[in-house]
């Protein structure tokens, strides 16, 4: 009896120690990656990163990539936020128990994890190819095409958050409004949206955090540019793509710039996710 007990308790202790070790391992990787990024990134931060363009290589900076990324991220949000919020609203308010609603919700969850490189291919086929054919080659790859690809990555995040946040709005609010004779669209736009506003905004910010670090779909949509452009239909540089190119280069000076860029993106993305966590700590929604 005591032998069995001893074995059980040893198994237990081993398992518990191993689980602690697993957690430690996860944390070690987190600290390792962040530390390396911070160490190399802070060391390489300098003012010229923000004032010079990538055309000068190691003597240059990232200003055109920063501007390109900000423009594309913003355009992507302008595309996916309205569609995503309205689609999420549809799921929560109109189709919460219909079969169509259930299947869209289900497929949206799949889109959340869909390979971003395939979404890039998709946008290449539906935006870049037609644009090239229609304009005779004066518009081909573009910042706009890049932002469409990014929008498809942000979209499911917004749909899901809006859906879940609206479901959190108490039903009594709907009943109270409807009993006053208010039409459904007004109820949705003016009562529910307002009640769930912070939650919906959280979704938009999460989408931004998600798409700001994306590289793969930009390769064949935005293409890259070594000069500054503010024109959405020009080929456009972006931070992740520039980091990708510089990482691939043997020049340590370019590696330093890439690390600085990596640090900026990481800080941006982590700050966003921290912000959303603070903004909405009441209910946890998972975004896997």
């Amino acid at each position, binding site marked *: 009896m005591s032998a069995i007990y001893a074995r059980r308790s040893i198994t237990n202790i081993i398992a518990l120690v191993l689980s602690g070790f697993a957690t430690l391992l996860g944390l070690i990787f987190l600290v390792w990656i962040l530390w390396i990024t911070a160490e190399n990134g802070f060391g390489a931060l300098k003012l010229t990163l923000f004032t010079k363009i990538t055309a000068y290589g190691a003597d240059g900076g990232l200003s055109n990539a920063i501007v390109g990324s900000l423009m594309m991220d913003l355009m992507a949000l302008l595309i996916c936020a309205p569609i995503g919020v*309205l689609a999420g609203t549809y799921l929560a308010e109109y189709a919460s128990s219909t079969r169509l609603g259930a299947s869209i919700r289900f497929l949206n969850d799949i889109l959340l994890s869909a390979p971003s490189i*395939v979404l890039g291919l998709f946008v290449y086929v539906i935006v870049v190819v037609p644009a090239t054919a229609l304009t005779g080659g004066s518009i081909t790859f573009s910042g706009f095409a890049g932002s469409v690809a990014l929008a498809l990555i942000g979209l499911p995040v917004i749909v899901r958050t809006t859906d879940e946040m609206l479901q959190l709005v108490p039903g009594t609010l709907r009943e109270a409004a409807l009993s006053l004779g208010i039409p459904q669209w007004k109820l949705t736009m003016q009562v529910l949206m307002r009640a769930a506003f912070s939650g919906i905004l959280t979704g938009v910010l999460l989408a931004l955090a998600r798409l700001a*670090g994306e590289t*793969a779909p930009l390769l064949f949509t935005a293409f890259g540019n070594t000069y500054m452009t503010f024109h959405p239909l020009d080929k456009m540089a972006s931070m992740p793509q520039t980091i990708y190119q510089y990482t*691939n280069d043997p020049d340590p000076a370019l590696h330093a710039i890439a690390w600085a860029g990596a640090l900026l993106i990481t800080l941006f993305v982590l700050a966003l996710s921290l912000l959303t966590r603070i903004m909405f700590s009441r209910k946890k929604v998972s975004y896997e």
Partner: protein
Amino acid sequence: MQATSAEPLARDTEHRSRADARHDLIFRLLLRCCALFVLATLLGAALSTLWGGRDVLLKDGFHFLTSSDWNPVEDQYGALAPIAGTLITSLIALVIAVPISFGIALFLTEIAPNWLRGPVSAAIELLAGIPSIIYGMWGLFVFVPFMANIEPTLNDTLGNIPVIGALFQGPPLGLGLLTAGIVLAVMILPFISSVMREVFQTVPARLKESSYALGSTTWEVVWDIVLPYTRSAVIGGIFLGLGRALGETMAVTFVLGNSYNLTSSLLMPGTSISSSIANEFNEAVGLHRSALIALGFLLFVVTFIVLLIARLMLRQLARREGR
């Protein structure tokens, strides 16, 4: 608001209610269109890649999947090497990430003191927030040299075990299938562990407490009560991680080595579907381009199926929970 201050004239009311009904209808249609947009995106991505890949699929058919002959000079495209690379790296990622994620979930739900749970789980989830290009950089500049240092040891230890030994034979390049698999494992850790942690928390306290009352150890409660209760969701979480690993591009493309040669060793370089597309798409024309788009279609379909299974498994537990 406006309604309460309006004159209660019957005609006016009727007019307004008709207008309201019309607006409601338009609004509803608009919303529905937006929701269908999600559907259209998925369908569009599948159909456009199928259409783009039709040339190679019609020409080679099933042979496209089974041939390892990727030869742009001869215009021959066999996708076996990238498919194998994608599957092998994802499998390595799962083998590593699943036990670790389970450990993390166990630690966070059963062992850690309450004050520690929040910060630690938030920290683990931060791993999911780090952009994949950062994983790629860290992988290439830091983890590859690290692996190059320990690979001779792997050669001498694991490499000598019969049968699986061949998997760990090879020059200490640092990059290759194993390195890519480990980087992927770190990337998908937070996804799997957060699902596990969440579903472990849904196990009714009375179940666990009854077991404890019978004298079970913590490990026995987790292994015999919690895990069976949440089995489908745990599998769902694992598939979710698998779906992520299959489609990842930037984290693996630097550390995989971009070689179309099939090897028996995990220490050797390989390629994956996503990194082949990233590397070659901008230079590909004709059949080559078609082959890459067909690879994209394949990747999309496989991840779709994996994620479908994941969601169905996750839903099973939610159903039982009555959610």
